[in-house]
């Protein structure tokens, strides 16, 4: 039941005892402000790490070939390892349960020209799966498909920035662009949230590039994503298994570090995850610590307040105040002070983060912020904290005997 008079009593007691209120509120403001800043900074640090992952799918593996660093199996060192279509289909078949998407990459640099506009771009010849690994979003048209691969059609998919460079008009699909003087039909335009450079790339079917630029079945790089539900540990094991398999196919010594390089995002992710969870635990500990310190502080002050108000409480009891009404006064006053000043502290902390957050980029802190959910949680926690803090003092106050309180000192 809402008791307006009780609230009036409490507001009067708060506003007539400003110093007392300020003291108890100040500790909470400071504690919560520190917590909010700390939490925001930790968030910013996590943001930085997550951003480092780029715009690719987080379950990606990149496999590159190099030259052998060790002799073995009758081969000399410094042998060039060349991936080809056969390797791709071998991996595809042998690991089909674990692999989500897989694509080859052939990289070239080309000069593209369209109606007098001319520019240099990277060309990637890929399989249809590439779209999902790189997370390319199609703005219009379609991506490379299996039919293109089967027929080695001369089609390309261009990035948003390529389109902006070359095309003055909006009509792009069906137009022909010359790449090193060979005409290709544009079938799609894509964008990539990850970064701008990814939007300056031209995609074409793997087989088309292999036929036109070398008449072979060579592959520069293999990219794949594993099934996310296998978990990070299994993904790291999968990476090692694939690497071992490739080394076996090419007769590479197992200890050779250079011939095949498998870059597994899972290992990075597992490190970052570990880091993040350590950070989260740290923030939680510090946050809980601050909260407990705040509760103890408020509790202390409330005990002092009860002591200071002993006489007043005695008078009230002599005038007919029930123990429950004395309890309510102390409890609500504490909850009110704690939650209001806690909220002020939270706003101050968020304000400081907003004000100084952008300038913290160079310290590996990106967009430090506190979520609305956390703010809501903190508010609830503060109300509970205020309640806990005042519980013992309120009990003590309600048990004050009026005769002792009224004794003249």
């Amino acid at each position, binding site marked *: 039941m809402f008791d307006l008079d009780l609230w009036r009593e409490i507001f009067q007691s708060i506003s007539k005892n400003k110093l007392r209120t300020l003291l108890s509120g100040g500790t909470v403001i400071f504690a919560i402000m520190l917590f909010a800043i700390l939490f925001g900074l930790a968030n910013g640090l996590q943001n930085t790490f997550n951003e480092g992952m780029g715009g690719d799918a987080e379950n990606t593996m990149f496999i590159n070939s190099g030259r052998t660093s060790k002799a073995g199996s009758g081969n000399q060192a410094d042998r060039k390892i060349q991936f080809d279509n056969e390797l791709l289909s071998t991996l595809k078949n042998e690991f089909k349960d674990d692999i989500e998407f897989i694509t080859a990459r052939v990289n070239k640099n080309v000069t593209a020209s369209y109606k007098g506009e001319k520019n240099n771009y990277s060309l990637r010849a890929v399989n249809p799966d590439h779209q999902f690994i790189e997370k390319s979003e199609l703005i219009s048209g379609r991506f490379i498909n299996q039919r293109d691969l089967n027929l080695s059609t001369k089609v390309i998919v261009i990035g948003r920035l390529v389109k902006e460079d070359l095309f003055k008009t909006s009509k792009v699909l069906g137009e022909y662009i010359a790449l090193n003087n060979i005409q290709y039909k544009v079938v799609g335009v894509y964008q990539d949230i990850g970064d701008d450079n990814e939007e300056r790339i031209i995609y074409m079917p793997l087989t088309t590039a292999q036929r036109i630029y070398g008449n072979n079945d060579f592959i520069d790089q293999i990219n794949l994503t594993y099934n996310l539900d296998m978990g990070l540990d299994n993904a790291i094991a999968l990476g090692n298994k694939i690497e071992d398999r490739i080394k076996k196919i090419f007769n590479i010594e197992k200890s050779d570090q250079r011939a095949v390089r498998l870059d597994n995002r899972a290992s990075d992710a597992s490190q970052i995850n570990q880091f993040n969870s350590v950070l989260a635990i740290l923030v939680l500990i510090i946050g809980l610590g601050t909260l407990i310190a705040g509760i103890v502080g408020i509790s202390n002050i409330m005990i002092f307040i009860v002591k200071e108000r002993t006489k007043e409480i005695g*008078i009230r*009891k002599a005038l007919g105040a029930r123990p429950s009404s004395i309890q309510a006064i102390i409890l609500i006053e504490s909850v009110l002070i704690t939650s209001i000043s806690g909220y002020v502290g939270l706003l101050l902390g968020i304000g400081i983060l907003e004000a100084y957050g952008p300038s913290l980029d160079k310290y590996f802190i990106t967009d430090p912020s506190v979520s609305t959910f956390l703010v809501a949680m903190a508010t609830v926690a503060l109300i509970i904290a205020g309640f806990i803090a005042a519980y013992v003092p309120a009990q003590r106050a309600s048990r004050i005997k009026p*005769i002792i309180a009224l004794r*003249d000192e």
Partner: protein
Amino acid sequence: MLEIKNLNKSYQMGDSSLHVLKGIDLHADSGEMVAIMGSSGSGKSTLLNIIGILDEADSGDYVLDGVEIKNLNEKKAANYRNQFLGFVFQSFNLINYKNAMENVALPLYYQGLKRKERQEKAMFHLEKVGLADWAKHLPSELSGGQKQRVAIARALASQPKLLLADEPTGALDTATSHDIMQFLQQLNDEGKTILLVTHEEDIAKMCKRIVRLRDGIIIEDEYIKQVRL
């Protein structure tokens, strides 16, 4: 109105116990004005505290306005204090951050009256003690006599059956003391029952009856000719 039989009270002082009230029998009718006298340590304040339900007796009977006061829980005690009793203290015991009117209205708050009604009643009683103009003043802005008048107005506000005054003039000079006593006499004339603790002979003589305590027993209980002011 007030019936006390064989009341005993002792306080534990470390290992030894101090027997403060050793079988008090006291009867007071409605409309009486009784002074309880005695030197310090005679047990007069303890007696008043037990009558005021601020303290509890170890043994004996206490009936106030037909209600037996025994083994009360805190809540009941609070209700009885609020309904039956009005307190006036030597040191006034006003709440320092509340103005005169708010102080007078406080017992009415604990009676559960509405704010408007409380204010009206508080103003009525302030007027009665002649301090209506001082309603918005804090206790620190009032003189000792004015403070005691506010305290009396507060004690009257809940319309108690019994007014208990513990050395009401103890902190006041003679002229102001007489002023307060005159007002208490006037209240008594209107029918209010008053119990007053004092150690000053001349103040006691302004009541209608003097009960003298020494070492926890009543040594004398006589009706006197009241000194009118």
